[in-house]
């Protein structure tokens, strides 16, 4: 969830045409505001006479007074539950084919219940786009992969199959982690391009390939360092994504250097890491205790159902403990991600706390578990609401000078992400 924070909001209308085309010539007035965009010089007040205080805003390029940004989230259980129920019903009777449209509805609700300066975000993506891109990915990527694997099994001599497989294993693993990175990038680009605010699109440029290789490299570094590189990896990837993110014609800014990006998260990470290691050994100890009888007798453990249930229960306890001790890290990550992003001189912060986030995650865990996953939209709503109600911006900005993003984004959605089952993450 490298883009869970303020940014996951993303995008604009599917096939929206050039903005100029939408407005008839009579609208030409608004063109005037282009003139001074980006210029320091006080723009000659354009033809539009602002009815507001004339003096203060003379310094902005647009001639409008600068605004600070106020985020707010109004999603309610009453709003999300009907959507969740309808989605659950339709997902079941369509054998999950509804999921693309269902996801679109959830996003539309979350976006439109999120306001910035009292204007809601708009999600302009459609279920068709998600469906189409899923089909494309299935046919163009996964079917050939299956075919290749099957052909390999048929054509390679059986005695050497495992040898070939062993040789191909590393490249295959690399390929799939690269593909996963592509999926993350492509899905985020789609979501951003389908998010508008005041009719202006967000967007993402840059290279999916570069991001995918970076994430492959960081994963390798993370495993070499026994996980200690993970916070740096997470923050560096976040930086890469935001460095290429736009609202309208303006780019988000991130620190010039990668140094110290993840610094403030390392204390919390150490706690999570240590609890993970200690918990792991504790789990192994419990496991040994459970199967000790048979091991002592020199036999193989008899994995009957009762033993398995006990082992899984121990595993669950282990995961809950690690989850609890990872909360400070999750909160620190959220705070840090907001800190490193600026937009037109405005800085951001998310007042996420360990306890607050813990409450959200614990509730979400129960909601998802008790509804067998069908309650996922409610869980997503709770997290989304938590983030946007704690997202604050410091500084003022000449919003009226921001122009439309010329990049309309991809034609279709996030099929690759769906195939990896990460498309559900907002």
């Amino acid at each position, binding site marked *: 969830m490298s883009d869970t924070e303020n940014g996951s909001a993303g995008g604009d209308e599917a096939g929206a045409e050039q903005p100029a085309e939408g407005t008839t010539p009579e609208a030409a007035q608004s063109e005037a505001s282009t003139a001074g965009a980006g210029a320091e010089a006080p723009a000659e007040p354009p033809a539009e006479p602002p009815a507001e205080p004339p003096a203060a805003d003379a310094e902005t390029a647009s001639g409008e007074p600068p605004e600070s940004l106020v985020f707010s989230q109004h999603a309610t259980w009453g709003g999300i539950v009907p959507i969740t129920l309808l989605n659950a019903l339709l997902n079941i009777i369509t054998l999950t084919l509804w999921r693309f449209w269902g996801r679109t509805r959830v996003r539309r609700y979350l976006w439109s219940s999120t306001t910035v300066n009292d204007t809601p975000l708009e999600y302009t993506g459609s279920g068709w786009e998600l469906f189409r891109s899923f089909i494309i990915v299935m046919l163009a990527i996964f079917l050939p992969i299956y075919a290749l694997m099957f052909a390999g099994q048929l054509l390679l001599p059986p005695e050497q199959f495992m040898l070939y497989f062993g040789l191909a294993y590393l490249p295959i693993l690399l390929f799939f982690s690269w593909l996963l990175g592509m999926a993350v990038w492509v899905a985020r680009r789609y979501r951003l391009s389908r998010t508008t605010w005041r009719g*202006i699109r967000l967007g993402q440029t840059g290279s999916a390939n570069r991001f995918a290789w970076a994430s492959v490299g960081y994963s390798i570094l993370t495993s070499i360092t026994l996980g200690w590189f993970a916070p740096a990896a997470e923050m560096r990837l976040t930086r890469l994504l935001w460095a290429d993110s736009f609202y309208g014609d303006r780019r988000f800014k991130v620190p010039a250097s990668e140094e110290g990006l993840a610094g403030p998260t390392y204390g919390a990470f150490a706690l999570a890491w240590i609890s993970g290691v200690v918990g792991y050994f504790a789990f192994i100890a419990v496991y040994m205790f459970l199967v000790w009888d048979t091991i002592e007798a020199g036999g193989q453990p008899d994995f009957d159902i009762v033993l398995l249930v006990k082992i899984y229960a121990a595993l669950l306890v282990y995961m809950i403990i690690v989850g609890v001790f990872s909360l400070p890290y999750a909160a620190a990550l959220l705070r840090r991600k907001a800190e490193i992003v600026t937009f037109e001189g405005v800085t951001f912060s998310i007042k996420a706390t360990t306890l607050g986030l813990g409450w959200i995650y614990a509730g979400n865990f129960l909601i998802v578990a008790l509804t067998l996953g069908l309650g996922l939209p409610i869980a997503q709503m709770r997290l989304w609401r938590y983030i946007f109600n704690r997202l604050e911006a410091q500084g003022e900005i000449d919003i009226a000078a921001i122009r439309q993003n010329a990049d309309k984004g991809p034609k279709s959605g996030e099929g690759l992400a*769906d195939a990896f089952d990460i498309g559900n993450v907002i």
Partner: protein
Amino acid sequence: MPSISAMSSDPAPIIGQFADGDTAQIHTVTVAVEDDRLALTGDSLRLYWRIKRLRRLPDRPDGSVVISEDQSDARLSLDPDNAARLRPLLPKLLDDRKIRRGTWMLGGSLTALAAGLAGFMVYGLPLLSTPLAHAVPLDVEARLGARSNQFVAWFTDECETPEAAQAALDSLGDRLETVSQSPFELKLRIVDAPFPNAFALPGGWIVVTDDLIDMMESPDELAGVLAHEAAHVAQRHVMAAQLREMGAGVLLEFLIGGGTGAGQEIARTGATLESLRHSRAAEAEADDYALAYLEAADMNPEALADFFDRMQSVFEELEAEAEDEEDAAEDDSVRSHQERAEDWLRATLRTHPDTTRRADTAREAAAGLSWSGAAVMSDEDWAALDAVCETGVRINDTAMERAADRIADVLSQPGKDEDEAVSDEVDAQPGEEQE
């Protein structure tokens, strides 16, 4: 907010918020219909949208209505009050029923598509799989079989089969191969495994575990079991099952993607149950063929039923043992909650295949079949076979090698289905097996 104008002749203006899709600015505009156009008038702008080209976007949670022109990024939003006043002027565009109709039509079409796909999976694939299996070139199936056999060798130890025993086994195989007109040479192997089972791989490989042979009391029963497996080979059931599973796998992947939610699990479980049903059908067909082969090869046709009976009695013994334990524990009347929970779990998961029914069916059919009474093999050969694996086990690989292979195998998910080819193995659970 609408300024409630006092003039009765001039209704209050309709006020909306307008973003032009070009700058990040909100303009307050008055909205009016002029002929075939919608006029938007603000402090600094005036523009017209052709009503024909208008489109309505999804309402906002507060009930606000959002309108745009075809393809445009511009947005006009009206709060519920103003939208209500615009509604009579744009009755078609703002008709809520259209939205609901759209939802139901979409839901309906997707349900139909899903039903079509499911129908194809349930009825189409099985119908196609048999002719397709017969169309698979023999050498392709042979290759697949050789590879599956290789995998079996990785996970089991081969029994040291004395020459005489192997010869007896081979001659049994030859006779069944002839009567079944199998397209493949039948290759019989005995492996050391901690459960009784027999299964056919693609390409004519038939694998029998030593525990199964231990369980049998006469070579006739072995002949019955082998005839059943030979039927799977000759009828190319294994190939058909693989094709079915592959097709279902691809379709299922198409349906549910990589998802893991409840809907996905329902679809997956449905597909598993469906494949169980087919394997049961294939078992019944193999039973029928097996009897025909036994008669043609002049072997004891009752042996199959005998074998099923024996399996049934093994189940019952196991069950009785378990119950005895429970009773014993019950007498102590100190059974903890935990023990009760364990018993409940065991009882719930104790499943019975329809062995009794198969025994009855086989016995009935066998009654009409002839048999000269000739022994299927000599007593010495049978004794030799029976002792296989007790004399020695040939370890195929070192434990290390096998562990490495096992890890590699787990990682090679896509290949996994093929290795479990055997339809028989589907409900293999310790203590039960297919003949």
